[in-house]
């Protein structure tokens, strides 16, 4: 990352996209679909959610048009970068019968080089965590690795947090500190930009931008500072691994289980959850069979099933498994928390369970906890 800050006027944003495309990247960026902001392929700035704001709280997500020029003045949508690299469902290999037995062919995905425009700090942090899971253990996951190979990441420093965002407390945002090729901070009439990699530097040099002036830099800092200071939720500051496992019999687990539907939405929207199930899809003629995988959830019946035993028969067990893993045992496995503070598990929870509130109550013992909305 270089310290040099440039200024990209808003009217040159299309040129910025074109420069990226000229390096053979397909641009993927935020777009409004069915009332939510999702990441999809695009070529024109017209596709971006110009003027939209989001409002989020546990169990609720709304977008509304504000009428201004801003592309990125919302916090995050249901989907992170995860589905781009860790596919929700994909074939892994195919077995074909031959005279004696069978042969197996790996089915690696066909991929394009992609450029993600507008990745948030929380999602970049989550991507680093997924890299640890799939690329940095004893075995490299070839499917994830293939999709992850040629990716150009344009980060956006958040200027608007949602009420559910708690990246400051999780230690990841709202400014992107690494993991991007270029990072932007959006102002009214343009963007303060900075390169984070050699390729990012090359693309910025092609844009021929002027350096950002002090006023623009101050404005961009105060905009992200605003996003940081307006966050209301925070995790307890202690060693959560220790405290959660010391509280495995806290009565709050039962309480939250009474509200939790065990639907697994939280795990589906979480940018770090990596569980998946494998399944076999034989061809009708019986001569071949495809081995598939798809996202799984620790809230499902099958996750903990073994013959003669259900490891987690009650919702209490499942919620506790999820939370103690995310914030606790994840540290044992990957040397980091499994939560980046994006807040999606709260927004997309149909029962409006406020995970941060639950953690605070479970860890706090009789300490008083007050959430942003005074939910208690």
């Amino acid at each position, binding site marked *: 990352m270089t310290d040099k800050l440039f200024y990209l006027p808003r009217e040159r944003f299309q040129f910025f996209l074109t420069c990226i495309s000229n390096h053979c990247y397909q641009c993927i960026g935020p777009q409004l679909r069915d009332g939510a902001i999702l990441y999809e392929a695009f070529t024109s700035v017209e596709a971006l959610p110009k003027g939209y704001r989001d409002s989020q709280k546990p169990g609720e997500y709304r977008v509304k048009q504000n009428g201004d020029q801003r592309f990125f003045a919302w916090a995050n949508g249901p989907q992170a970068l995860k589905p781009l690299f860790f596919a929700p469902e994909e074939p892994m290999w195919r077995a074909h019968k031959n005279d004696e037995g069978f042969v197996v062919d790996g089915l690696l995905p066909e991929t394009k080089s992609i450029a993600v425009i507008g990745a948030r700090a929380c999602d970049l942090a989550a991507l680093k965590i997924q890299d640890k899971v799939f690329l940095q*253990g004893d075995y490299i996951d070839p499917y994830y690795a293939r999709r992850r190979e040629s990716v150009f990441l344009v980060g956006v420093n958040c200027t608007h947090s949602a009420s559910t965002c708690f990246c400051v407390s999780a230690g990841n945002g709202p400014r992107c500190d690494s993991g991007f090729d270029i990072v932007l901070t959006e102002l009214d009439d343009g963007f303060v930009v900075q390169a984070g990699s050699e390729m990012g530097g090359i693309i910025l040099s092609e844009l021929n931008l002027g350096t950002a002036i002090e006023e623009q830099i101050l404005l961009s800092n105060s905009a992200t500072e605003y996003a940081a200071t307006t966050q209301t939720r925070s995790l307890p500051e202690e060693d959560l691994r220790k405290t959660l496992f010391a509280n495995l019999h806290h009565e709050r687990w039962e309480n939250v289980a009474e509200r939790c539907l065990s639907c697994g939405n939280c795990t589906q929207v979480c940018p770090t959850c990596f569980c998946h199930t494998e399944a076999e899809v034989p061809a009708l003629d019986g001569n071949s069979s495809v081995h598939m995988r798809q996202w799984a959830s620790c809230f499902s019946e099958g*996750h903990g099933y073994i013959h003669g035993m259900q490891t987690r028969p009650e919702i209490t067990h499942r919620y506790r498994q999820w939370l103690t893993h995310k914030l606790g*045992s994840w540290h044992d496995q990957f040397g980091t928390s499994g939560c980046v503070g994006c807040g999606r598990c709260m927004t997309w929870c149909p029962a409006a369970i406020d995970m941060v509130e639950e953690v605070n109550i479970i860890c706090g013992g009789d300490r008083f906890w007050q959430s942003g909305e005074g939910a208690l």
Partner: protein
Amino acid sequence: MNPYLPYEAEIMERHQETDTVFTLHLRLTDPEMGRSYQFQPGQFNMLYLFGVGEVPISISSDPQEPHLLGHTIRSVGRVTEGMAKLAVGDRIGIRGPYGRGWPLKAAEGKDVIIVTGGLGCAPVVSVINYIMKRRDRYGKLTIIQGVKHPRDMIYREQYDAWAKIPDTRVFLSASSGEALWPWHVGSVIDLFSEVKFDSAVSVSMMCGPEGMMIAAIRLLLERGMPEHSIYMSMERNMQCAIGHCGHCQYGGKFICKNGPVFAYPDVKELLGIKGF
């Protein structure tokens, strides 16, 4: 290298052990793969049945004969019932070996106490066979095994034979007896009072239902066995066997890669707490 791809293997031998338990001896069809394959007792393979799916199965044969891989399988569900129908000459998929096996090097020169229960347990059979073949490297061998019903007992003749070997003691029990069952009727745990051991020079290895293992651990600890001398093989749902799918998690451990064999101190934090 795609770590998910199974390799084809041929069934060279098939033995029916009980009504529902059978052993398949497999040979990898690719000679190169066959030559490079090595494993430790206690490790497992993912076995693939064409068109049906994959399951984790321990390797029950001797590591010095890695060209013929024994798998003792109980048919309980979709994949294992399908496998029960296979015959010599049929093909199956294998990937592995995975996980950490029994501490057989560390146990050399020591007395070994093997505890197993439930429906009989393949992972410990591999240890018993291993020690029997290298009897001079180990001290006294004590085998404590409990089954529900005598007919569930796999390798029954072998147990009878083992019991006759010097320095080897076998304690068997079945929860319900039958005619000609010469051993104890009751739980494995009852047998412990009869078992004498010197906790300072013994290592214990166990596998079976967790409740049984926990009870056995308690008795061993009460009788002075140090925590780090107790090893156990754990079981959870497994999809990938390589630490990616998340199904086998046990707190901070992945049973597929940090286990399935654990030293007791590594898992004691959560042992016996329902839901992990």
